[in-house]
């Protein structure tokens, strides 16, 4: 947008400098950074998506009475292992975040590599898990909602695992310093959300049909 030729370039108000921000830090960790708030905003929107999908699940349970309709409940062993691994991943995730705030490049690299491997393993397990659901999306409404829930969560899983791998590579390049540490912390926060969304999902999809 260029200035209209008829306009004085500057505003007419005289400036009275009352504050100098020259020495302010150029980024900050956690909720000090603007990006953290952005991640939280998307977590809120996606979290509502999960809540509504859970609501739709129980709506269908309520409408039908019999659950899981004519299907067999999904295999519980793989998913329990998957859940355990997810919970376990919170620890290296926490450490990646912690060392990113201390700007310790070596440790950040180490935990990012661990998180990338764990993420890839979880994705592999997820494929097995979906194969052992004992239902298909087009079988009945139960199959549809279960596939929707798992699909929605898998989308989150893929997104964050790809993000983690890219970030890991980034931290091994010359860009791996300064505010990139901030991105590591934010990626860790998003992973916490992915795990937090999984826990109720595990209870609803795997435990509830066995009650």
């Amino acid at each position, binding site marked *: *947008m260029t*200035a*209209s030729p*008829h*306009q004085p*370039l*500057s*505003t007419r*108000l005289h*400036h009275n*400098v*009352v*504050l*100098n*921000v*020259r*020495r*302010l*830090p*150029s*980024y*900050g*960790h956690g*909720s*000090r*950074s*603007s*990006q953290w*708030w*952005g991640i939280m*905003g998307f977590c*809120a*929107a*996606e979290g*509502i*998506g999960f809540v*509504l*999908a859970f609501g*739709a699940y129980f*709506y*269908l349970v309520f*409408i039908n009475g019999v659950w899981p*309709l004519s299907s067999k409940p999904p295999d519980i062993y793989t998913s329990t292992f998957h859940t355990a691994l997810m919970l376990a991943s919170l620890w290296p995730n926490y450490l990646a975040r912690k060392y990113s*705030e*201390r*700007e310790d490049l070596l440790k950040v690299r180490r935990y990012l590599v661990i998180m990338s491997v764990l993420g890839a393993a979880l994705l592999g397990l997820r494929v097995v898990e979906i194969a052992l659901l004992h239902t298909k*999306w*087009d*079988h*009945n*409404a139960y*199959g*549809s909602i279960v*596939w*929707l829930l798992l699909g929605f969560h898998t989308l989150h899983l893929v997104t964050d695992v790809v993000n983690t791998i*890219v970030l890991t590579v*980034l931290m091994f390049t010359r860009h791996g*310093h*300064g*505010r990139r540490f901030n991105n590591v912390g934010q990626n860790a926060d998003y992973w916490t959300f992915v795990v937090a969304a999984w826990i109720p999902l595990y209870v609803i999809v795997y435990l509830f049909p066995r009650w």
Partner: protein
Amino acid sequence: MTQTLAPHDVALDAVPEPTRLLTGQPAGMPGVQSEADAPPDPRELRDDQVDGQELTARLARTWGTRKGIIGALSTVDHKIIGRRYIITAFIFLFLGGLSAVAMRMQLARPESGLIGPDLYNQLFTMHGTTMMFLFGVPIGEAFAVFLLPLMLGTRNIAFARLNAYSYYVYLFGGAMIWFAFMLNIGPDVGWFAYVPLSGPEFSPGKRVDFWAQMITFTEVAGIAVAVQIVVTVFKMRAPGMTLDRIPLFVWAELVNAFIIIFALPAVVTASVMLIMDRLVGTHFFNPAEGGDALLYQHLFWFFGHPEVYIIFIPATGWVSAIVVTFSRRQAFGYIPLVLSMIATGFLSFGLWVHHMFTTGLPQLGASFFTASSMLIAIPNGIQIFCWIATLWDGRPVFRTPLLFVMGFFFIFVAGGLSGIMLASVPIDAQVHDTMFVVAHFHYVLIGGNVFPLLGAVYYWFPKFTGRMMSERLGKWHFWLAFIGFNITFFPMHITGLMGMPRRVYTYLPEMGWGNLNLISTLGATMLFASFVVFLVNVVVSARRGALAGPNPWDAGTLEWATSSPPLPQNFDRIPVVTNREPLWAHRNTLPVVAGLSVENREVIISTATAGRADLKESSPEPSIWPFLAAIATTVTFIGSIFTPWAIVWGGLPTTITLLGWFWPKGVKEDEA
């Protein structure tokens, strides 16, 4: 809180101690040397070293947009994108309006053969879809994209590249559905696309799929912009702008953004389930396999009712801004106004079932939703009374923007009254799906959104373009619109009570609805004429209007502290805020911040509540990748209408473009 503020005899508000404007916290944890705390590069020019014309010109270069098509597609300037957003939303308003005019022509007389039933179905679907999804949601966000950084005293919106991406996704989604309509594959199942009508059994073909994917496009864009708005308001306010100094328009956009974040996922869920039922054979809404059609309605209206407030709440912001400026005093009841908006935001999620009173719900549920539907009249009433009090106690200047606000009061309150009638289950059951409902919600939506919007265009046009709109044409526009609107929609109350249903392409002469329909159509012609006057006014004024100068209305908020139209950097130095109406408190000298870079894009990040300067983060440089990512997204979404595998093979280019977007390039992005 509500002291009278005559702009000419106001005392200069004291600037707080600098320690109360800065947090002064280092970025490094205790004992950690963070790169963020490194002293600034002495070779980098900062705005405490230059002044006047040189500062202005240098900043304009740093924050500017390059020329040429690549430059235009790479821009991240919130004013350029905001302007495109506003113009695009207006084009959709005109398209939606023209489809309504076509329907009015058809209904002007009984048994008219102008438009057949199939085209008529597409027309009312396109009308509703366009107005709700392509105009109603985006227009509020579009104004926020342009105005919020200016009103908050910062240089760009948060996540400026995401902002560019959102705009392109919105544009492509809207263009897609209109192209589909022109190819005779426009949706024909109503703007809400209820199952089972929209399901695979009763709507074969691709029409509904285009509708469902249009939802995906617009909601992705809508949620992304809402997040940007929240972050901009929370973290990018000028130092000193505490929560109780945030302009009312900004509060409205903030509440609106929260409603969008919580409501839009519901309609995405509904439309994803619908398109899966249609394309891959799921059974969400198929009762034969354990699904349920009403599930769709619950999900849809969990979004659909807050949607009404997504359309209305930004308008309350426009009204507040206009009422304050033209009353020449601060808002009466600032805190009640803010709390009313927040209360409306919460209550809007407790009303959705009142759209489903005729679906056979349990009686207790219906009573609950009747009560909550009546409850929401309270915060809305408080707002109206605060505005009236502001005008009453002020010295109102009746220019065109204020005229449209007067029109809003009249029409919106009338719509609110018929809304209270409809909240009662027995009346609702009687007039459900009749023209009475059409009359009601056009009073609410046109009165509650379009009239304030037109006022807002007259009000901010000088800021957008540097030129004033014609007052004379403005008055013609207002009176044509006001009278035309009432002639169009008031008779619909009566045709509705006489039993005329909505969404019928014609009716028999014996029904006796002919005369009233003819009156409505004549009114619609007048309303159409008012928009022609408006368009002429916009085009002529943009070229030949009187020059506006920075603050033609002598308003008090920060967007008027900068030139019209604003330069790329918005402000040469970031203001320090000491008052709710900073320009009324500081009429000659603006307290400002110095020390930001002149060579790199730096913005102040402040604390969420107290508005103390905390960080100087870098703001994104222009980039072509958001545009490419939007193209890849579009190909994926449209492809998925034809094969679900498009999600898989479209995922790859999308990922590549996102990588290009986020991967740091060059020293500037790395070090800044």
